[in-house]
């Protein structure tokens, strides 16, 4: 296997299967990551609110949940989602993609809840004190004073979470959900050119995450400037 043959094979694969990688793989991966971060952020925000609640039991439940999610492998969680989710609502006949997406969302929510909580806690306590001393109640203080500032800490972190998820969704290919890594499996199965297919997929993952993290970085710097 020389460099030239590898290169030629890559060109060959791309000419024949470019749509499998670029159209199907990339779009499914991006869609999966976007769904995960979007719903993960919503669920994560709920968890963060529960974690800051006055009810000890609520805090304990959330803490336990976050610890369990963080303490077990994502692949295992995906397997559990794959088996459990269709059983829970059989009437909906939820497919593999949705089951895997649910598992990814739950996983991401655990991480995002910590991102949101620390983004809120990074806002100077003096801001809360100033707002409360003016007579604002707790929720007015949160919505008018704390969250608008916390969002500047949270959004870039969510962007980075999106980048991480892009890589983590590759595990979903275990269940052939059609993501970029699934494209690799498909093309490898048809061409028997595993190495070349891997290179293509690797470059695509890298370009995606590199470009996106640069964008997040630029956005973060712009937010910093407006402080």
């Amino acid at each position, binding site marked *: 296997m020389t460099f030239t043959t590898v290169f030629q094979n890559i060109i060959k694969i791309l000419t024949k299967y470019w749509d499998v990688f670029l159209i199907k793989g990339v779009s499914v991966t991006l869609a999966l990551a976007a769904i995960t971060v979007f719903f993960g952020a919503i669920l994560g925000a709920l968890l963060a609110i529960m974690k800051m609640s006055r009810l000890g039991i609520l805090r304990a439940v959330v803490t336990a949940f976050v610890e369990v999610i963080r303490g077990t492998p994502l692949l295992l969680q995906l397997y559990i989602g794959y088996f459990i989710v269709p059983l829970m609502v059989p009437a909906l006949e939820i497919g593999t993609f949705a089951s895997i997406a649910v598992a990814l969302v739950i996983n991401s929510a655990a991480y995002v809840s910590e991102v949101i909580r620390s983004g809120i806690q990074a806002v100077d306590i003096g801001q809360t004190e*100033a707002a409360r001393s003016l007579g604002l109640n707790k929720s007015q203080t949160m919505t008018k004073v704390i969250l608008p500032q916390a969002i500047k800490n949270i959004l870039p972190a969510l962007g980075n979470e999106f980048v991480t998820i892009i890589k983590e969704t590759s595990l979903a290919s275990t269940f052939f959900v059609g993501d970029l890594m699934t494209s690799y499996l498909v093309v490898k199965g048809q061409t028997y050119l595993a190495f070349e297919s891997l290179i293509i997929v690797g470059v695509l993952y890298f370009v995606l995450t590199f470009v996106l993290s640069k964008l997040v970085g630029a956005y973060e710097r712009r937010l910093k400037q407006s402080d």
Partner: protein
Amino acid sequence: MTDTVLIETRNLTKSFGGLQVLKGVDLQVHQGEAIAIIGPSGGGKSTFLRCLNLLETPDGGDVIFEGQKINQKGTDVDQYRQKMGMVFQHFNVFPHMTVLQNITLAPVLLKKKTPAEAEAQALSLLERIGLLDKKDEYPRKLSGGQKQRLAIVRALAMEPDVMLFDEPTSALDPEMVGEVLSVIRALVKAGMTSVIVTHEMGFAREVADRILFMADGVIVEQGVPAELLDRPRQPRTQEFLSKVL
């Protein structure tokens, strides 16, 4: 100054963990009175001030504001806080709002004023402190002295009955202390009831009707400025003043 008692504390106590920071503080603040609190670091001055508007919850004793005991379950603290303005050492202006929005937020949100009324009032407050031209700036464009003056008028916009100042000039560069003190001076002259924690002895002497010397969680000694600053009776006060004067 009138005879009406605006704020009163009775045997106020507060601990943090095992450390007792307030050991039974009694004070009556009269309407229109200006009180300065001085004392060594860690003596409990900030904690006491923050107990008055319940930013800290006292462990024991009473805080009585305009005749109502306010440190008990079921009181609507937010409503009382609207009548007690507070100014902090580190300004705590809202960085995500313009100067104008900083001032109008609370009066509008708490339905004290319509947005138009609040804006008109904010503009006249800004004019009074010479910051009218900054009304649409964000606080990051302001100097420390300007931020603190903004913080003062933000509190004034709620038309409070008393103003609490916690070392309002301690975080400022020396050349900016004067501009903040003159705003406070004007307020006191206009009859605003004020409790001012400060290390500025000259200022305390000039504006205060009464100075409290606080150390180790108690009011060690109090009196009119000339009396307390020039003829302190307690050794603890004498020792402190010999170091700072």
